[in-house]
């Protein structure tokens, strides 16, 4: 696994897909937040985080993801996750992320879900 988390993104209409590759820790979380905030400032309302290339998330990474989620909710937008390992899926559910953000098995389902919520 790479030492630092890489984040890439693509905007599709009002929805932005963010792909992570690596450990979502302080550095990885900051990368995600930075990328997400740029798109939110540019008017995006929906975020889909595809974590299929991430196998580890720590509590700092989770707290940053909660901050991103709060920011999205402040703007009446929606955030969804997809591509989670079973361990990360369970982690998000226990830590409360799944309370306000949907978790989908595939990216396409996540995009459709976020689209429906922000329409």
């Amino acid at each position, binding site marked *: *696994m790479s*030492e630092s988390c890489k984040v890439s993104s693509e905007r599709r209409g009002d929805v932005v897909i963010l792909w992570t590759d690596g*450990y979502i*820790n*302080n550095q990885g979380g900051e990368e995600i937040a930075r990328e997400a905030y740029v798109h939110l400032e540019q008017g995006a309302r929906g975020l889909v985080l595809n974590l299929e290339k991430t*196998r*580890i*998330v*720590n*509590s*700092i990474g989770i*707290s*940053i993801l909660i901050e991103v989620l709060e920011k999205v909710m*402040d703007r009446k937008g929606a955030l969804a996750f997809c591509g989670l390992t079973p*361990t990360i899926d*369970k*982690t998000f559910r*226990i*830590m*409360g992320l799944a309370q306000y953000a949907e978790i989908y098995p595939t990216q396409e389902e996540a995009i459709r879900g976020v689209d429906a919520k922000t329409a």
Partner: protein
Amino acid sequence: MSTPASTSAPARIAELWKRIGTVLAGDSPLQARIAEAALAATGARDVTLYFREREAWIRAGEGHGGVEPGEVPDPMPHGIFRREDDLWLPLRAEGELHGALRLFGLPDPEAPESAALLAFLLGSLVGAHRLARQVRDAEFELKSRLLELESLYDLGLSLGGQLDLSALADEVLFRSISLTDAGKGTLVLFEESGAVLLERSVGGEVLAGRDAAAWTLPEGGVINNAAASVPTAGMKLAACEKCLAVAISVPGRRLGALAVADKESRDGRVLDFTPTDARLLSLFANQAAAAIETARLHKDAIEKERIERELELAAAIQRQILPRDLPVVAGLEIAAKNVPTRQVGGDYFDFFPLSGGRLAFLVADVSGKGVPAALLVSTVHAAVHLQIDEAKTVAELIGRIDRHLQKYAATRKFLTCFFGLIEPDSGTLRYVSAGHNPALLRRASGAVEQIKATGVPIGMFPNSSWKEETVAVERGDLLCVYSDGITEALDAADEEFGLDRLARLMSAGAPGEICEKVFDAVAAFAGDVPQYDDQTLLLLKRS
């Protein structure tokens, strides 16, 4: 502070709250909203907001008046006070000091009552905000503990069925790094010899496997923090500031090591690992040790099962080859028996009734055990049956079998063999003993003669030849051919059964009875000592 002094207290609160309320409802950070609200409520030129964090003052927000922030008085007076042109408002709630507001350039510097009200409102707001944050942090902490417990439970379940060491290592390492908030981590597993079996790192290597192998950390021990002063001999830590490491071990044996390093914080500092982290890592290491041991035992069990299957197959091959019935030949009484061992050696005996009432027979012992030996026996069996009608003499037959083996045998093995051809009418026995144990010929008189080898084992050297010998078997004489599983059977004192004991069992009785006596005697001699060689006995008595 332009609120008229004559207005009632509730009205003053309502008026002040109205002024600051709209500003506080915004979505900028709280400290910025408080600063803006203070400016809006007081009409001051500028404002600086300080928060009290861990016994220190932190400048949290300010207005846009460009006024230089002043030194925060320490200790902070309890009530509102003036210093030069500034009015200082300590922000307290429930008796706790949460922050301070410094107002500069107030239009109405003589309004302490309104200032006290503002301090009370903003102090309560900051206090409530802090309380909410503390509740949220406590909730997050509680969920983190729950996650740790769930992870331990899940890891136990997951590792219980995990037999792939690589997947097992990943699972343990990922959870260890994640739950301790470490920046990186390494897991190393060793072979029984101490060589590195597997090495995994995430975020960078914490310890090199070759160094971890020399690690002298006591079983179950934990090293924590201060990587520079790790009290271990031989273990070098890669570039890291603080580390936490434990041994992965089962009683009496170290299986590996698990290390994480550089615990992260939100503000980028490297924190000390906590006792909870150390306990968690130890628990993970214990679970990993149990799972690794289970995986190893499973691997051993599979290997044992494979060997068992191989032996069963070899035994089946052997059973198919050995004659089911003894031939009935006029002038001869015949007995033969083979007792295979669990190890399945390569004993083989056979009879070939030939024209003119003659009988050919052999006892062979193939080198090696298991399937390779059984396959060689099978090859010999095929070669003898193919060549026996072609060869004119016993020596020629043995030569043909040797060449067949040199050409077709899959493995480089050899066999000892006693091959005989007896004419019951005349009693003439022609034979070749290819490196086989001496056969015994008990004369009717009771004397026992040894019939020794006439050449080297078959398949041992290329271009070998064998001398054919002849011996006269008189009526009442008993020929005994056997494999070394009989004479080399061991007792509890590691003594061999030996040729003399076998010779003493040769009597004037029927071959069938003698055969049973021999096997009974060998079994009684060996007792409970496991035997590793097949036992074969072939008896011919000329009647």
